[in-house]
């Protein structure tokens, strides 16, 4: 790949205000960002909105990217922060989602239907928000409980409890 078309060349051009270069970065990374957003939110429409927000935020913060990590890694962090920030402050946030007590997170009636046989992606979407986020961050994305606790704003023990409940729920609906 020519130097000016590789990741670092594109980032440098985007940092200079080149929108075409930023579009190329978007095309390279949108699948990863959208996958994270749709799994964390359980909603395609919310994930589309958040994915847009991630790239708008990334454009505005590009000057802060120093190339110490890969662009995709930096963008991933932006994405997690955007989703978690929206979870805490966005219109979809509510008391149940913000609770630190996993016992309060009973599956909603909407998510307790006949899901037997559904695939894992759909099953994840039916989890209560807190359990879904911990499961996605831990078991899909590979974060440790300490990282999740910091990202989500809960105690480490709560993260463990959410994960336990999420796995139990998923095994139940996937059987």
């Amino acid at each position, binding site marked *: 790949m020519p130097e000016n078309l590789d990741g670092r060349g594109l980032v440098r051009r985007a940092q200079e205000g080149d929108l075409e270069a930023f579009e190329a970065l978007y095309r390279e990374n949108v699948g990863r960002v959208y996958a994270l957003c749709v799994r964390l939110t359980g909603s395609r429409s919310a994930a589309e909105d958040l994915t*847009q927000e991630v790239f708008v935020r990334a454009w505005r913060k590009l000057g802060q990217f120093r190339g110490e990590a890969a662009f995709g890694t930096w963008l991933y962090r932006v994405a997690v922060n955007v989703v978690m920030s929206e979870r805490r402050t966005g219109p979809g946030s509510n008391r149940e989602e913000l609770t630190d007590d996993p016992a309060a997170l009973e599956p909603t009636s909407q998510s307790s239907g006949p899901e037997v046989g559904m695939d*894992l992606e759909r099953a994840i979407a039916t989890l209560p928000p807190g359990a879904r986020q911990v499961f996605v961050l831990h078991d*899909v994305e590979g974060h440790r409980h300490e990282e999740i606790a910091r990202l989500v704003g809960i105690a480490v023990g709560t993260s463990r409890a959410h994960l336990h409940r999420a796995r139990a729920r998923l095994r139940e609906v996937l059987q």
Partner: protein
Amino acid sequence: MTTCDEARRWADDWLDGQLSDALREGIEAHLAACPACRAHADGVRSLLAAASALPREVQPERDLWPAIAARVASPARRTRRDLGSARRWGAVAAAAVLLVGLTAIIVARRARPEAETTGVGARSGAGAAAVPASLPGFGEAFAEYERAGQALRSALADRRGQMSAATLREVEDNLRIIDGAIVSLRMALAQNPDCSELSTLLAATYGHQIDLLRTANQLASM
């Protein structure tokens, strides 16, 4: 002695490698002796394998780029980085103003009709009837600029509905300045056909006009 309840409660931490040695040994001894708890642990293990095997990428069902581009290019959301492009636009306008000034000095002593100004989508730009239709020397090159400019104006006229009113106003204002400079330069060149400086200025001004029209079309396409 680990019970079934304890083994199932700790199965997650055991699979995640989070248990102390004593607890790990206890649960492993229990699993070796209890088929039901072993099946439970295998079920969790299968779930973890499926989770880690999920595709890293999922493509959205629609292209999100146009909406993102519109937001990052919007003047209302302009940031320091966006100001880079704003400065480029400003530079074009400034260059045009400079050219207007230079041209005014060059042609000040010559009588001339009122320069025609042109808005986005207007039928004719700098090649108005008030100025000579052909010019010696660089005539063919200037005719090429005229054709390219008209094509870009036509494309922009079709897209003007996709631009914000503020952006459209800026484009029209900048085009008017450049068009005025081109008209003046063409008139001056018609009267001084051997003046290479005027030819150079006219070519540079056409270049600014084409750059501006191209940029405006790109913005309108986002």
